[in-house]
């Protein structure tokens, strides 16, 4: 009964250290690549001025009507991934009644080579989560994307599994979820996306003016070490990169250096 008073055992101390190391992800630093969004201004949104490749990113549309915008943003992120890392990308999609399917010629135009995409058509959510987890176990891959408009099994545990796997292998995971998705998940980054109408003011004389550049309103809902906020970010299919569409309107900029970031890009 006198055990209470004794000093903490060295084993416990060691375990505590390990746990904190795992939480920081430093044990598996070797697999981690820092991804750039292609624009220094957009990079600054994220801690360490980049997106860690070994993270689980959730992309949510802001509303039902914004689902194609969310798909677009997820595809833009995938395009960045494919641009910076070798290997194929696995696209997991349920045999969806909504039937929003990838269109290969359009992907090529968007900046993604369809040859590098392996598309899985999956019957149920359980298999989809299994397929994603398996993909995250294969460091040869560039990334894996899951489309889950209706979720029942995807919860904290499931997302934690994906996140840990991603951390081990350095393969990026993207999860497209419904705008109604709620509940806590272990995603490293969560983005809410809505499309923005073409920014220029329409000229008066034209009845229906032409369509402008692709711009999304990205709201950063969750990201450790970064401030939440929303940004208007455009997609440039010629350079396959994001860019900040307009100045940060009246918002405080991020502090120059975040304390917990050993890596920084210069210039």
């Amino acid at each position: 009964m006198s055990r209470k008073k004794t000093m903490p055992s060295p084993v416990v101390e060691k375990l505590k250290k390990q746990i904190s190391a795992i939480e920081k992800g430093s044990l598996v630093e070797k697999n981690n690549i820092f991804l750039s969004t292609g624009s220094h201004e957009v990079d600054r949104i994220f801690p360490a001025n980049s997106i860690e490749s070994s993270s689980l990113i959730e992309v949510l549309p802001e509303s039902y009507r914004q689902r194609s915008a969310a798909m677009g943003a997820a595809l833009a992120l995938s395009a960045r991934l494919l641009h910076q890392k070798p290997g194929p990308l696995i696209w997991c999609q349920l045999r969806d009644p909504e039937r929003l399917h990838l269109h290969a010629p359009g992907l090529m135009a968007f900046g993604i080579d369809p040859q590098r995409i392996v598309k899985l058509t999956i019957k149920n959510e359980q298999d989809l989560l299994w397929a994603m987890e398996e993909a995250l176990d294969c460091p040869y891959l560039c990334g894996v994307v899951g489309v889950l408009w209706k979720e029942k099994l995807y919860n904290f545990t499931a997302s934690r599994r994906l996140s840990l796997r991603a951390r081990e292998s350095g393969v990026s995971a993207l999860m497209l979820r419904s705008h109604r998705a709620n509940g806590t998940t272990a995603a490293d980054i969560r983005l809410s996306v809505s499309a923005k109408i073409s920014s220029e003011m329409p000229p008066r004389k034209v009845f229906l003016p032409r369509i402008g550049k692709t711009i999304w309103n990205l709201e950063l809902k969750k990201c450790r070490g970064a401030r939440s906020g929303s940004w208007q970010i455009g997609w440039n299919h010629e350079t396959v990169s994001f860019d900040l569409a307009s100045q940060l309107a009246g918002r405080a900029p991020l502090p120059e250096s975040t304390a917990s970031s050993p890596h920084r890009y210069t210039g």
Partner: protein
Amino acid sequence: MKTFEYDPAEDQADLDKLTLWTIRYSPWVAADPPDGIIIDISGCAHLLGGEELLSKDIHIRLSRFGFNARIGIADTIGAAWAMSRFGNARTKIIKYDKTETALERLPIAALRIEQKTIKRLTRVGLKTIGILNHKPRAPLAARYGKGLVDRLDQVMGRKPESLSPIAEPPDYRTHQKFVEPILTLEQITLSLDQLTISMADMLECAGLGARQFILCLYRVDGNVKWIKVRTSTLSNEASHIIRLLTEKLAALGESYDIGFGIEQIILGAYHTEIMSHHQIGLGGKKENGSAREFQALIDRYGNRLGFNNVGKFLPRESHIPERSEQLISISEKGVKPHNWKNFLDNLQGGSHLGRPILLLPIPEPITAIAEVPDGPPVHFEWRRLKYRIIRAEGPERLAPEWWHLMPEADELTRDYFRVEDTEGGRFWLFRQGLYEYEKTPTWFMHGFFA
């Protein structure tokens, strides 16, 4: 005693089932309706300690199922057939040089010939195979047909006879028998490891790889369960095959009724081909290690989700959007490398964002209000939601492919528009038909831009 109505179809089905069960003795088996099974035991008998023990084993097991079997073992199919039906014992084994003498005393009915021929032969006193065998062949053939002589030659082994097996025999196979029937799938997984390793060794020694593996589980009551796994490339890697099979077994899980246990498992390798060896790099690490890992991943996807559901994109020569791409199974062989960039340039010329990232495989009709004759819509309703358009580009006209001579009447000219609604959604709509020709052209929703 119980009586049942005679049901030939049911009998045949049961015979097929039993034939599949006999694959445990040899991979080369065939059903011989109405009441026989032919097993080619060449090279298999020693596995059970010789022909006597083999036939004993068959007797014991079949009697447990409630069958009373007669077995004939001989050099030729014909002789074995005759011995099982006309031999004077439950088991009759003819040594390789005794075929002729053993058959001499048997009636000619043992020759598998027509009833009519038997009658005619009996009438002239040709009652046994021995007598028939010594008669001159030409007159026999002339009088009773070539079939008789053929059958005689087949029985004596002068003419080859082959049997078409009920299931394709594996190129390589390993098996394991259990003294006590196994009652859990976990235990099977354990012995599966050994079985697969010895299979992989065999393949490795032969320099071969296989594309398909089948694991057969033999239940005590005669039920046989086949578990198939496929690989997209040639494989002889034990760990990979074990993983594929274990996953299948796990998926089988609760739905499989193990009954009173499993007494034997057989692993067969199919479609083997010569496999080039993987070079081991100087560092000791296998080259293409991770690429092979990727192949292994694809195999596991294929076996769990079906290879048809693991797809890759290929361009297709067509201007009609839904026909301009195809998603084919990743295991498809002989696919030429293709250049998507050139394809896209051909497809839509200079404008590079004229194709959407998402497409409805079948365009969905919408109700639209548009400017006549060729303006973009101003309002439209799709899936019960209303959209108001504030920006538009188009039309891009795609004429039907007249050279295909599609019989469908709805092959009309399409005018595609890219439009943007008040919430920033960007759609690809088209009008099918022209106001000049059709009374009411219809509008369709087809794709989505980012």
